[in-house]
């Protein structure tokens, strides 16, 4: 039975990583699109970020050095990722449930990392397993684990309530949306309740991690706690294949769409890549486009359909 739990955890993680890599590559390999930024763009000079300005505010901007500040981007990204600043600003009603849910998830991810360190580090430094660092680590992951489970389950319950009762979400709520939230609630609740109610002598989360790293099949996992672990692993594997993988999408929507103000410079890689795209042969059917699958975008752009008609 213990092997089943270990397999579920490993499988869940492997599928998650594969799913995320696949999704990331899918977006990363797409052609660079035409510019479509929305201001404010936070890597601009601080004096401009305040009012949302761009380098276009300067005369002869192409002769001036370009400013791109990572610190400026981090100033927006960190409050957005940690505290969902966008929702706080633009959709305050949704902020509390969403913040509870997401912050709870961050704490649970932190817990998983701490547990993995606790389970894996003694393989490298055996003496650490009984030292004060180990005790502190165990205390810390218990706090983050409980807090994370409570916050995320509470947040998910509130989100579920909103989905079920809000008229404005009716057109946009699919069966999977309910399933996803219930999946989170059941999986995290099962892990947390199973952990609390496990019989004396049965394994806790730290024991499972240690057992996994040592491949110790003698670790006794209680059924409820074990079921929670299997469900949580399945949830982790499921996420990259849903719209919940928006942590990947957000990287692209922010850095490659909303904030992408990179100008096209002669001899640049942008120029070279676009030159290649312009050799694509579109097949749009409308007469004025003049695409027949043989003509390239360059051919089309250099044809005048109005003159053709006149002839």
């Amino acid at each position: 039975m213990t092997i089943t739990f270990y397999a579920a955890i490993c499988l869940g993680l492997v599928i998650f990583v594969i799913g995320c890599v696949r999704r990331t590559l899918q977006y990363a390999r797409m052609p660079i699109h035409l510019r479509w930024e929305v201001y404010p763009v936070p890597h601009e000079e601080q004096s401009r970020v305040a009012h949302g300005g761009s380098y276009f505010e300067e005369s002869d901007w192409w002769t001036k050095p370009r400013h791109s500040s990572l610190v400026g981007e981090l100033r927006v990204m960190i409050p957005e990722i940690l505290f969902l600043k966008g929702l706080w600003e633009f959709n305050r009603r949704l902020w509390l449930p969403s913040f509870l849910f997401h912050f709870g998830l961050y704490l649970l991810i932190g817990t998983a990392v701490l547990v993995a360190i606790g389970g894996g580090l003694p393989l490298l430094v055996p003496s650490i397993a009984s030292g004060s660092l180990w005790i502190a680590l165990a205390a810390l992951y218990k706090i983050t684990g409980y807090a994370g489970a409570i916050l995320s389950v509470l947040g998910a319950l509130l989100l579920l309530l909103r989905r079920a009762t809000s008229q404005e979400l009716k057109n946009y709520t699919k069966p999977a949306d309910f399933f996803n939230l219930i999946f989170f609630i059941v999986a995290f609740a099962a892990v947390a309740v199973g952990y609390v109610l496990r019989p004396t002598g049965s394994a806790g989360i730290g024991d499972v991690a240690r057992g996994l790293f040592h491949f110790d099949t003698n670790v006794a996992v209680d059924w409820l706690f074990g079921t929670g672990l299997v469900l949580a692993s399945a949830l982790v594997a499921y996420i990259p294949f849903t719209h919940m993988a928006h942590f990947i999408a957000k990287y692209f929507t922010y850095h490659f769409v909303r904030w992408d103000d990179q100008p096209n410079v002669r001899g640049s890689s942008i120029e070279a890549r676009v030159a290649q795209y312009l050799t694509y042969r579109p097949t749009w059917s409308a007469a004025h486009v003049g695409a027949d699958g043989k003509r390239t975008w360059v051919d089309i752009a250099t044809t005048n359909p109005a003159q053709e008609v006149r002839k």
Partner: protein
Amino acid sequence: MNRYTDLRDMSRANREPLAHLENEDLMPLPVPLESPAKDHTWAPLSQAAKDKYECGLDDTCAITIPQPKTPEEEKQLVAKFLSGLEKLFTKENNWTFLQPLLLTMEHCTGCQTCAEACHIFEASGGNELYRPTFRSEVLRRLYFKFVNGGGLLSAWQHGDIQLNWPLVARLAELSYRCNLCRRCAQTCPIGCDNGLVGHELRKLFSQEMGINSKECHDSGSMLQLKVGSSTGMSAEVVKDNIAFIDEDISEKTGIEVHTPWDVEGADVLLIHNAGEIMAWPENPGAFALILQQAGVSWTLSSEACGYDSINYGLWYDDSQFARVALKHAQIAQKLKVKKIVLGECGHAHKALSVIADRLLGGDLNVPRESSLTLLRDIVMSDKIKFDPSRNNFPVTLHDPCNVVRLMGVVEPQREIVRKLCPQFREMEPHGVDNYCCGGGSGFAIMSGNNFQDWRFHVSGRKKLQQILDAFADCIGPETNKYLCAPCSNCKGQFRDMLAYYDLWEQNRILYGGLVELIVNATVDVKPGFIDWEWH
């Protein structure tokens, strides 16, 4: 009013509109339009239009799609739509916007944060049909069902939808109920973009099915490619008109103005929206005077398309967009100018400076810049002397979305009005958080059937509220007030909307451009350049 429309109603077989608005349903306006009774009654859609075109969406009809005559024809149109839908998600056909479109299709959580930001949704009184996610959700379901594999699991995960001709026809109309201002995109926590969805839908309909707004296509980009300008002006006519404007401005200001044409090697190729030359001649006249007085080396081009910065393809068609952008760049290259400067036209700013940027490689990559920065530099220098007391009347500034939120040119125009207009007051919100004038994405030039009623009552309503609020302390007819809109399309919308509500006659709210304010404050010019007459 029933504010709710179920997504499934889009496929409803009859041609009954899905939504109907009355004045009482709309977002309230401030004084002097505070009561719905003071508002105009909507002109109903004519029976002839209802009998001839697909008008099953709401109270109006923007793009006049002829009703198919047989079920067979309907089937063919649906098949064509499906073929276009597939093309929209291939790199060969849509490399230009594939990545952001796919991200928007696959990651919207349906949180509705965007709805709070949309001026059309708010002005309609929260009508579901105008929720920014409504049309996106239709496209999203079509994408997952017909492009991404479909099946029961997909329907469970992404929702199902019934594809038929009524849905296609309604979706085409619905793509013209969004100003593409992208205020919603600015607020989306994920970075999804409902404005982009509207843009891509318009492209699908135009590029695959030849369905588009007649004003943007037939008498817009096609006319521009045919004669050189969407106004229909040939080079000879435009030169005649500019000569007349030079003469008129010289007489009015006391300064001899001469517009240079086709000057090879000039520093600046200025391209106006040619609509200015026809509708607001004082604008190109004021530009000529300012550039001449500041000693700028500049020229206009008399080559076809070179005297009209309009690029309506930006709103509905990549092929038309690329053709016009390419012509602008080729003309600048041929004239060997140092840079192209775009006059007071918002969509032309974004089209040539931002969207065309990656299309223009090698020698065609002629630098492009906003006239607002050039004007700011002139006004802040000592080249021209100003007397701000000549502009001592209430002035507010409209931010064209394409210049501000979508290009980041926010402060130059403000520096000018702060210096030259003692009674300048901001609208709230402003800058990158502004609201669209309601004429964006082609609406300002679209007036078929009763579409104007919709754009005044719904798409322009939020901006109207902002304007009235900005002048609330002086709304009476005893004070002349100036709404500064440095964009031709925005001015077109304001001209029509202020006239519709009689706000010049009753409340003395005049609209105009930025250069007019600059010339009006120029010491060397005869006082009274702004003549406070409706035009």
